[in-house]
């Protein structure tokens, strides 16, 4: 046993990250840390790493995930991830710490601390974490149906808290079982915080609804953690160099590429791109250009993404993204880009990159090409400084004072876009939109943000782009759908 434990203690540490407010970047850095392996299922993890602050809506899902770690298990909290402070309205975190008194709080990115907790756990010096939740006795089945479970016949209803399948039409005109399922907020193949309520007919999605955004679940939860687009938002009040903006854009797109490659089963290639993003500078232009060419030619990726999740002009207009531009719109042939009319870019010979297919492949090539283009612009921009206040082209689209942020509009695309897709294609589609639930949550407080200049990107109104609602979110199952009794 001693030998086994000693060998086990030197294995790569299987970690399941739970991403709270302001935690996304620190959580993604986990993928690059030596000696750590990020796993897809809590069942495979020994350590639960809570990154950033938890809102109240994230508390219950976090506890569900925690209790699915088989043990020996321990929970780490990286509170200040991305600059947020522990007492920054983190009610959910306080509740978590109350429920799990043995949570270890360390500095984000503290590999040594993480490995030490793991070693203590395996050697028995640290006891395995106790369950956060107690077993719930569900009330006896009630309602109609011969088994009193609330549905009809053998179908439907919610016996013992588990929704049963109902019959529904399928695309071929047959009546088939449709299982209601809530997936999120920590489903690893989706952006953190995304909750989708779907009906599953086999592995085909029917009737998709976006759940409440858990990053903004209570009036007290102010999601002001730094976003991945923080630098772009800061241009409202701050002068920045064009070079800094463009390197940040390239880094953003490379991070997205890394996540996307991982989603397509290419974890090792994802790691290489992720490492490149982390240390990115203007000098990496040739590397990024070569990467963009390679990804554009990659036959496997082409087969996995072409024809999947087509966003056409009508869909863009319906949710209002035609006003934001951004890679999703440009990949569908809409050449809107705030940089076209930005005086700071006037001498750089900027012309937007455009693809026309509007599918996941076009979006992949779009972002890869824009990353390369951004570094090329950064190289040419030299010391050009961009004055504050003008609408700026962010990595997801135009950011302008008093305008909703692009993620809200992108989120509104999902229900129509995913309906009828096979599960794998739906995951590819969601990933291809580069959603950020924190940005969408922040959106609801956009009116309180300082606006230095007036006038939106195209003078458009703010209607049609606020799909998420506020209020306490119903908590639901976490990434996997079963809880150990």
């Amino acid at each position, binding site marked *: 046993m001693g030998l*086994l*434990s000693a*060998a*086990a203690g*030197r*294995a*790569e540490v*299987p970690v399941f990250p739970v991403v709270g407010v302001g935690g996304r970047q620190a959580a993604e850095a986990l993928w690059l840390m*030596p000696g750590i392996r990020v796993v*897809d*299922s809590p*069942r*495979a993890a*020994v350590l639960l790493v809570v990154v950033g602050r938890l809102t109240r809506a994230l508390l219950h899902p976090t506890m569900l995930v925690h209790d*699915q770690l*088989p*043990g*020996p298990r321990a929970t780490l909290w990286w509170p200040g991830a991305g600059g947020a402070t522990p007492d920054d309205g983190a009610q959910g975190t306080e509740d978590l710490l109350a429920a799990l008194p043995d949570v270890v709080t360390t500095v984000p990115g503290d590999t040594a601390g993480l490995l030490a907790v793991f070693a203590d756990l*395996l050697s028995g010096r640290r006891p395995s974490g106790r369950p956060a939740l107690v077993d719930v006795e569900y009330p006896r089945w009630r309602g109609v149906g011969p088994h009193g479970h609330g549905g009809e016949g053998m179908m439907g209803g919610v016996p013992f808290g*588990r929704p049963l399948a109902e019959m529904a039409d399928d695309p071929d005109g047959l009546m088939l079982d449709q*299982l209601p*399922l809530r997936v999120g907020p920590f*489903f*690893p*193949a989706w952006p953190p915080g995304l909750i989708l309520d779907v009906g*599953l007919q*086999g*592995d085909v999605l029917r009737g998709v609804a976006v759940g409440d955004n858990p990053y903004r679940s209570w009036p007290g939860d102010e999601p002001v953690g730094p976003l991945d687009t923080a630098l772009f938002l800061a241009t409202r009040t701050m002068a920045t160099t064009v070079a800094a903006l463009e390197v940040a854009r390239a880094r953003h797109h490379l991070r997205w590429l890394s996540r996307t*490659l*991982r*989603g*397509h*089963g*290419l*974890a*090792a*290639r994802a*790691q*290489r791109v992720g*490492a490149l993003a982390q240390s990115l500078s203007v000098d990496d232009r040739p590397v990024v250009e070569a990467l963009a060419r390679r990804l554009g030619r*990659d036959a*496997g*990726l082409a*087969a*996995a993404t072409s024809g*999947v999740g087509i966003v056409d002009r009508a869909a863009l207009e319906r949710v209002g993204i035609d006003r934001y531009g951004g890679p999703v719109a440009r990949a569908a042939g809409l050449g809107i880009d705030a940089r076209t009319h930005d005086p700071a870019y006037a001498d750089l010979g900027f012309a937007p990159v455009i693809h026309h297919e509007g599918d996941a492949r076009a979006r992949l090539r779009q972002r890869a090409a824009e990353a390369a283009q951004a570094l090329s612009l950064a190289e040419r921009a030299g010391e050009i400084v961009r004055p504050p206040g003008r609408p700026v082209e962010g990595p997801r689209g135009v950011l302008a004072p008093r305008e909703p942020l692009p993620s809200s509009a992108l989120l509104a695309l999902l229900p129509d876009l995913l309906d009828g897709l*096979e*599960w*794998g*294609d739906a*995951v*590819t589609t969601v990933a291809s939109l580069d959603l950020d639930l924190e940005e969408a949550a922040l959106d609801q407080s956009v009116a309180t943000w300082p606006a230095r200049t007036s006038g939106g990107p195209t003078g458009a109104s703010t209607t049609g782009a606020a799909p998420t609602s506020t209020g306490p979110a119903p908590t639901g199952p976490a*990434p*996997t*759908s*079963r*809880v*150990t*009794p």
Partner: protein
Amino acid sequence: MNWSAPLPGVVLVGTVLVAGAYVASVLDAGAARLVAGRPLRVGELVAGPWREAALLARIRRSTTERPDAQTWALAPALLAAMAGVAVATVPLAPGVAVADVDDGIVLFGAAMAVVMVGAFLHGWSSNSVFPLVGGYRFVALALSYEMPLALVLIAAALPAQSLSVGAIVESQQGLWNVVRQPLGLPLFLVAGMGLAFWGPLGMSDGADLAGGTGVEASGPDRLAWALARHFVLVAVAVMGAAVFLGGWQGPGLPGALWMAIKTLVLLAVVVGVGHRVARIRLERFVVVAWAVLIPLALVDVFASGALAL
């Protein structure tokens, strides 16, 4: 030694499977590091699989609500047993075969067909959504793997005029099937990769399902499943080396060593492809299998038949 006696046979097959699975894990980790551009630390690579196995052995088993416990335990055992049956049919050196039966490739094909049952049961047993979707994915794809697999093996049997793996190895004296039937090995490896749900054909345990059939497994169960899956991959590589790369034949070195080297090469190819090629869409693969792979396999059979006449 009489390798077809129960004890030596089990020991031989078990050794090949475990050693092969270990080597495949080391190769996999090494390929991942190369592709990721991280330093290749040989010490860590060599110790990695043992440490990982030790950790999984230390992690507790977990269960779900109302699982089908018997079939859950059966699934990896079934996969491992079928890999064992497959390896048993292959002569690993001159005269060293556990069961070089007259219809060896038929037995191999049958064993590989039962892999589908194991993969489905693994998805079914945990009574959870994503594993079940993963299990059905494998069922949807299994025929698309098994058809080309059976056809290229039949083509390889034609020049030998025998279904015995030993006879097929003998028939490659002077000219390996990889040259004589250039379509055979690539098709065989694609099908084999699918049967071990590896790399681009790992749809049933894919990242888009958070691990598919294995989502709910923890600790020893996870270890058993990973081992069983590696065993299938090893069985495919061993059979590929025998049927397409001339088996134990080769100059200078002992036959067993040639067999090991050839198996290693095939494992390296499969593992390398796994890190380079994106996961394929289910629907697209079925279309490609029936519109391209199976017709190519038929061409392989007809061409080999014409040559054999």
